[in-house]
């Protein structure tokens, strides 16, 4: 009998073992390396061409808001589908399902978060573009980006656990990405236009809370005080909550976005037939 499988500390040890080895595998994947290098090259080019930290951060923000959901949700789901048979072998080992889930989740999320953080930070170090104005905003960009990685890897787990068929699951992931990253704001804008004579501000704020990408954008643009780039819901949000409490509320909502999909996918993993 395996001694460490008993008690919460033992279970965390088991998760750690899985996470370390899975991270090693994920960090060696070509698409993860390409993602990190792509972010570094994009950031470096922007710094060379634009020349100043804050404007580059706004440009990077747009890249990040499209790219992170794409990488974490679609490539994360593809990676999880590819590992499904090995997951079954791990399920036949002396490890509780929840420990295995935590290990697999961390094994995918930590390397992606690391690649994201390095990809965003290294260009500023290479170009010596870190000053008192840039550092706090870059730090916030990194934190929010890591939170987005957590949200979308949770959603990738939820898709792969809930939908057995790989092609169908990846189709759902792609449609999900298109929905939240591309179509959602257009839909909100269309609704706002259609109901412009009605008091729809509360509805619009609720709509923003329902999209983690909108939340991330709002947090960063309020921080950057770039009202013109905030979009309709972002501008409403700042008007309703102000700068400090607005950031706090959006950050809290983003934390809920991290926790809820994680809990749903962990529960689905516990109950699923493999």
């Amino acid at each position, binding site marked *: *009998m*395996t001694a460490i*499988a008993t008690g919460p500390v033992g279970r965390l040890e088991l998760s750690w073992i899985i996470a370390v080895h*899975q991270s090693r595998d994920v960090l060696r994947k070509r698409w993860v390396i390409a993602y990190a290098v792509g972010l570094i090259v994009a950031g470096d080019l922007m710094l060379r061409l634009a020349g100043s930290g804050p404007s580059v951060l706004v440009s990077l923000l747009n890249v990040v808001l499209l790219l992170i959901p794409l990488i974490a949700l679609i490539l994360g789901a593809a990676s999880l589908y590819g590992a499904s048979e090995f997951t079954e072998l791990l399920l036949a080992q*002396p490890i509780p399902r929840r420990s295995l889930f935590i290990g697999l989740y961390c094994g995918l999320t930590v390397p992606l978060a690391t690649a994201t953080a390095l990809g965003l930070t290294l260009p500023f170090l290479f170009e010596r573009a870190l000053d008192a104005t840039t550092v706090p905003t870059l730090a916030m960009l990194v934190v929010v980006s890591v939170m987005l990685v957590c949200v979308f890897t949770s959603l990738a787990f939820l898709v792969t656990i809930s939908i057995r068929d790989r092609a169908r699951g990846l189709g759902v992931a792609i449609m999900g990405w298109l929905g939240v990253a591309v179509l959602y704001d257009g839909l909100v804008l269309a609704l706002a236009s259609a109901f412009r004579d009605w008091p729809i501000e509360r509805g619009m704020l609720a709509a923003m809370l329902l999209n983690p990408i909108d939340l991330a954008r709002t947090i960063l643009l309020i921080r950057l005080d770039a009202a013109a780039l905030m979009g309709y819901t972002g501008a409403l949000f700042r008007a309703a909550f102000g700068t400090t409490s607005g950031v706090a509320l959006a950050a809290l909502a983003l934390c809920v976005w991290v926790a809820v999909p994680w809990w749903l996918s962990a529960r689905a993993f516990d109950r699923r037939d493999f």
Partner: protein
Amino acid sequence: MIQLKEVVKSFGALPVLRGVNLVLTAGRVTAIVGPNAAGKSTLIRCILGLVRPTGGTITLADGRDVRLPASRASLGYMPQQPSFPDNLTGHEVLAMLDALRPDVVPDSTLLERFQIAEQLHKPVRTLSGGTRQKLSAVIAFRYRPSLLILDEPTAGLDPLAASVFKSAIVAARDAGATILLTTHVVAELSVLADDIAFLMDGVIPFAGPIGELLRETEAASLDEALVTLMQAPSASIPAATLQAVAVPRVRLQRGLHQ
């Protein structure tokens, strides 16, 4: 020993296992055979804990549920299609699995016996299908399991590796392990299996030694006996008989062979 009592599994409205009763005896090799879509994979997955039965129990000799994580410490499993993380080396895969069983000294002689020691420093993605199958076999036997579940184990193994594999099964059986395997290769059944559990339409109408199967079916060969079982109409296996069975040997129902 492992005992399955009234194991039922349905996927939605589709019943796959309809009351499986079976006792797998320690020190014996039991082969689950049956036609395609009989429920063999589902039954194995129920024992492994990958699939939760809709009803019934699966217990070890001491009464523990076989699907508890601690019970799986004594389990060796070889899936039909081995798959490992592409970018890890064979050594890293083994190191991960070793770490999950810190108090077990792995059987390191298996690497030499299966002749894969020199391949293990390479990433798994560069290994051939046969080498992955050997790695899977090594993992199944590595922790000296008392319960071995082998799903089509020799598919993809070269003759030498298949021979080593068969001798490993015999050694494990002689050491008292309970071994469950599936295979469609009848020649393998004759060599490896002590008992046959015949699964059809989600129930086991016969479980017992091969000699007994030959007698009951009045067949000259195992091939012929299995064909006789597969051709028997499922309606001739009344559910009442199956429900009554909770003993190691499930007799072939009278009148089943024609």
